[in-house]
């Protein structure tokens, strides 16, 4: 559905010097430097997937999304959405996609939300039944009616985001690009938003591309992940695969020995060098071990041999930890991360 081939985007930034003298000197001269925001990125997002587009600040996420939505033209390389190059066929592409940029509004600033929707209905030529159906849905889940006749510019961030999200779904787009869609929303509304997008995916097969600082959003919506760092793709696959790349596994257990927590900890760390044991308040012990050095069998055998286990479980590696690791690793020069530069096989 979405294909990027060797996508590159460079910016020229004017250099400003700080202070009063600096401003005076920029009055006379202006220097530029070139920043490569997206660096030779290739990936493919199949139709009907819900992909988290993940990266630290400045990783080139927003820039890539802007190219995929047709707002920016790549410096080199190309990308297609449903077979169209968005920046070449902006208007045709616009009918296929729904967009939310959390930081910015795309509604009619001076108009009320209902007025904006009426205009969107005409602009996208939305058939009456579809419009009615979606409006009813938004009323029920996002409480759109509560926004009333207030012009968009006077809405609070949370109210505006509800309207933005609804606006992006109004025309049943085949692809949704959501960039930070849950900014300013409370827990209940976040749930509603997740429910909405999952419903669109289930009933219409909508392809979703999502960026969010809220890890919970990603977990609740996405099935795939595309991780970029410093303008390069460092991982692409299912979210489960991504979690599997975690280099630490954990086991949490309870025991009946009555041994002091400090002793337990010392015994584990002595018996399994490189492993960290942390007792928690409830008397349980958490064991974190490097996945490459020990198999889970080795660790469990050790624990069964040395302690009288009452209960144990192995939590799934946290997405946050995995990502923190990926960002850290990609910053080491000379390290080629897995998945980078994978060549996709033609257009979707």
């Amino acid at each position: 559905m979405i294909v990027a081939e060797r996508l590159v985007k460079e910016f020229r930034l004017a250099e400003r010097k700080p202070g009063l003298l600096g401003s005076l000197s920029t009055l006379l001269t202006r220097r530029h430097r070139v920043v490569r925001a997206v660096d030779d990125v290739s990936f493919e997002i199949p139709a009907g997937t819900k992909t988290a587009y993940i990266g630290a600040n400045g990783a080139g996420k927003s820039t890539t999304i802007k190219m995929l939505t047709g707002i920016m033209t790549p410096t080199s390389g190309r990308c297609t959405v449903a077979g169209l190059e968005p920046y070449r066929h902006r208007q045709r592409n616009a009918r296929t996609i729904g967009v939310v940029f959390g930081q910015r509004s795309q509604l009619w600033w001076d108009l009320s939300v209902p007025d904006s929707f009426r205009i969107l209905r005409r602009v996208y030529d939305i058939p009456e039944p579809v419009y009615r159906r979606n409006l009813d849905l938004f009323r029920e889940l996002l409480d759109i009616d509560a926004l009333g006749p207030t012009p968009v510019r006077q809405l609070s961030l949370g109210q505006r985001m509800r309207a933005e999200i609804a606006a992006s779904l109004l025309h049943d787009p085949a692809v949704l690009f959501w960039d930070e869609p849950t900014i300013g929303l409370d827990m209940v509304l976040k749930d509603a938003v997740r429910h909405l997008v999952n419903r669109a995916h289930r009933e219409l097969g909508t392809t979703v591309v999502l960026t969010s600082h809220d890890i919970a959003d990603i977990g609740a919506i996405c099935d795939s992940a595309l991780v970029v760092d410093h303008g390069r793709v460092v991982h692409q696959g299912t979210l489960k695969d991504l979690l599997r790349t975690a280099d630490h596994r954990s086991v949490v257990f309870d025991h009946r020995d009555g041994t002091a927590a400090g002793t337990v900890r010392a015994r584990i760390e002595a018996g399994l060098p490189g492993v960290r044991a942390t007792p928690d308040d409830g008397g349980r012990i958490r064991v974190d071990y490097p996945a490459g050095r020990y198999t889970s069998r080795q660790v469990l055998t050790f624990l069964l041999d040395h302690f009288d286990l009452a209960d144990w479980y192995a939590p799934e590696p946290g997405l946050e930890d995995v990502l923190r690791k990926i960002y850290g690793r990609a910053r080491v020069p000379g390290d080629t991360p897995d998945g980078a530069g994978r060549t996709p096989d033609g257009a979707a």
Partner: protein
Amino acid sequence: MTARLRRYTPFATSGLQSLLQYRSMFAMTAMTAAAGAAVTVFLWRAVYAGTPGRGPGGFTVEDITTYLLVAQILQVLHTNRVDDEVAAEVYRGDVAVMLVRPVSYPVMRFFACLPVVGANAVLVGLPVLGLFALLVPLTAPRPADLLLFTVSTALSVLLAFCVNLLTGMTGFLTTNTWGVRMVKQSVVAFFAGQLVPLALMPGPLAALAKVLPFRGMVDGPLTLLLGRYDGWTDAAGVLVQQAAWAAGLSLLCAALWRAALGRLEVLGG
């Protein structure tokens, strides 16, 4: 006192800094001023074209040209952006943020606008004056008159600040400050004598213009510059009237600002 004033110098320097980031702004302000001056200058020169020597109102062609040109430059000095910035800050509610700072907002605004005035004088006023001096003959003022004009101009800048602050404060009352500012601009330009010298207005209109504070913004300084006064008492009278209006409007600003803050607190920002 100096320590208290020193607190405001950062506002002055940062005002200049943000201004200098837009270097094209000055070129464009200059063009705007030149265009504005050209309309009135050529319109009135056409009137005086057929009359050699002193024409209507006792002006020569050079006098009227100088009058209208300097009037336009004074107007540039009075465009200190206080009206739109205050209106915008009131509208966006940013004024509430200002209140938590340990400085007086109107005083801070005054210091922030000073460098704007200075930069406009040097980067806009002088080039426009030079351009017109090349195109049309002007009247050279006497040194004493030039001195009087300088003092009078300083007072006119203070007057303009007060007028603009009052205009900006209408943001507490209406969201369409654009309309208010347009009215202010037209009315001030007319009654200050920027478009038509007070001497050329019919009796009742001139009388009205003379008692309004705007007269001190353009017609006052230019009366002094062109030596159109009867002895020193007359000249001093112009300055005293300006100073009195400046003091009066400053007090009015302070009082209204207090009242507006009271309103702001009631509304909860």
